[in-house]
């Protein structure tokens, strides 16, 4: 397949780097200010080098990447809320040209799911977005394999930063601010960790799952989610939980059309009590009990692996 990769952050760059390994070529690659286009396939190593040293990927205009020759558009720009732009327009451009779109950007499928689906309906192209939920973990494709109608609930730890903070607080007996600063030093938390710690990121993933599970065309957006973050969790609360054989995790829950994200008490030894930056999704299936999928929920190569898995499914 020929790929046009829009977005040159950790995920977009990793897709470009790993594409040939999966038998694909990259014919266009754009960041926010530049693009490189070559219908014969770009020199990925040289381009990634240029991105690292000069901060740009090429000398073409970024919008030219959208009209380049490609089979699959990979949308890997940062997630935006509300109108989900410019990601949404990128997906639209691909579908209107009857090309496939594979998303790592949560915005379009969390905030404008119905719009995306109706564009897909009019197009020869398909939309896949495994990478938007749980990084490398095959959550959406597993739901698809079982058929959404056979999944009654999904619960999970879907934000590694929040989970790292909670598990460090619990094991070290440290307070929130202290562990957050440590997480930022380690690069686990971003300079502005708001979306991770206030539950927004996990909620977007929950909303995407709810959209996939929805069997009556009901569309969900972030506004439909009930969200509480971990900023108010104190060391003393975690201590009380531990004295009772429990711990606290930021859990996203999608059950019967409701999306809730918040700190929850879970038994210490429960599968959901993963530690560090690890993620887990627990699927409640109609005929096969619980199914746990655990793994790395973020990171460039991890998320790129999910993107490349989607491309393989097309």
């Amino acid at each position, binding site marked *: 397949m020929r790929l046009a990769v829009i977005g040159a952050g950790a995920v977009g760059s990793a897709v470009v780097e790993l594409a040939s390994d999966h038998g694909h070529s990259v014919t266009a690659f754009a960041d926010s200010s530049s693009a490189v286009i070559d219908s014969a396939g770009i020199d990925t190593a040289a381009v990634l080098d240029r991105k690292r040293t000069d901060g740009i990927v090429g000398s073409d205009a970024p919008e030219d990447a959208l009209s380049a020759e490609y089979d699959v558009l990979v949308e890997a720009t940062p997630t935006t809320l509300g109108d989900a732009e410019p990601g949404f327009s990128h997906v639209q451009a691909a579908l209107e040209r009857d090309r496939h779109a594979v998303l790592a950007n949560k915005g379009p499928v969390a905030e404008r799911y119905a719009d995306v689906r109706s564009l897909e309906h009019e197009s020869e192209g398909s939309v896949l977005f495994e990478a938007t939920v749980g990084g490398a973990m095959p959550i959406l494709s597993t739901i698809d394999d079982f058929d959404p109608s056979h999944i009654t609930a999904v*619960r999970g730890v879907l934000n590694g930063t929040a989970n790292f903070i909670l598990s460090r607080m619990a094991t070290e007996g440290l307070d929130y601010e202290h562990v957050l600063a440590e997480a930022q030093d380690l690069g686990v938390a971003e300079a502005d960790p708001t979306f991770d710690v206030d539950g927004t990121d996990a909620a977007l993933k929950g909303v995407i799952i709810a959209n996939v599970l929805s069997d009556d065309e009901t569309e969900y957006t972030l506004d439909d989610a009930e969200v509480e973050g971990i900023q108010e969790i*104190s060391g*003393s609360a975690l201590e009380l939980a531990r004295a*009772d054989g*429990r711990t606290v995790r930021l859990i996203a*829950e999608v059950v019967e059309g409701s999306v809730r994200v918040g*700190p929850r*008490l879970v038994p210490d030894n429960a599968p959901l*009590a993963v530690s560090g930056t690890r993620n887990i999704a627990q699927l409640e299936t109609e005929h096969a009990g619980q199914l746990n999928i655990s793994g790395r929920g973020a990171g460039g190569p991890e998320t790129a692996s999910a993107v490349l898995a989607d491309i393989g499914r097309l």
Partner: protein
Amino acid sequence: MSDSTDEVRSYTVRLELVDEPGELLRALEPIANNGGNLLSIFHERGNVTPRGHIPVEVDLEATPERFDGIVDALRDAGINVIQAGAEQYSEALTIILTGHLVNTDLSDTLSRIHESTDATVTDLSLSAPGGTDDASSARIRLATEEGAVDEAMRSIRTVADEKGLHVIEPLAAGGDA
């Protein structure tokens, strides 16, 4: 249709009494006054619940209809009915409340949870490392009737919202993690 509601059956009622003179008599009156036939009373004097109450087990006979009246009358009299017949407080629920628990009157918080949910607080642990004027945390174990957990959680959220407290909920029913 069989007229089974007239059939006299035996029931066991478990009560929690405040340790004060006259409490036992006050608890037995609603039973006698509502057509219940007392069979036995087991007064566990030495056994005190975490809240300092004394558990009492009463065996009695009554028709199902009268029995319902007896339980209502006991509750109207302010007597804590822990178990009545088959209706047992059987689901345990553990939550953690955080925030200014002491300044917002913890005992009022607990009694409001109790009143609005029919849930009984069976255990309470408080941790206030920064002193009682600072934010603190409490782990609360509640017993609710079977199937009433969701309703109890809704009431707890309402009380916590009003007082600016945060609730760390257990996973929803069905989610055994």
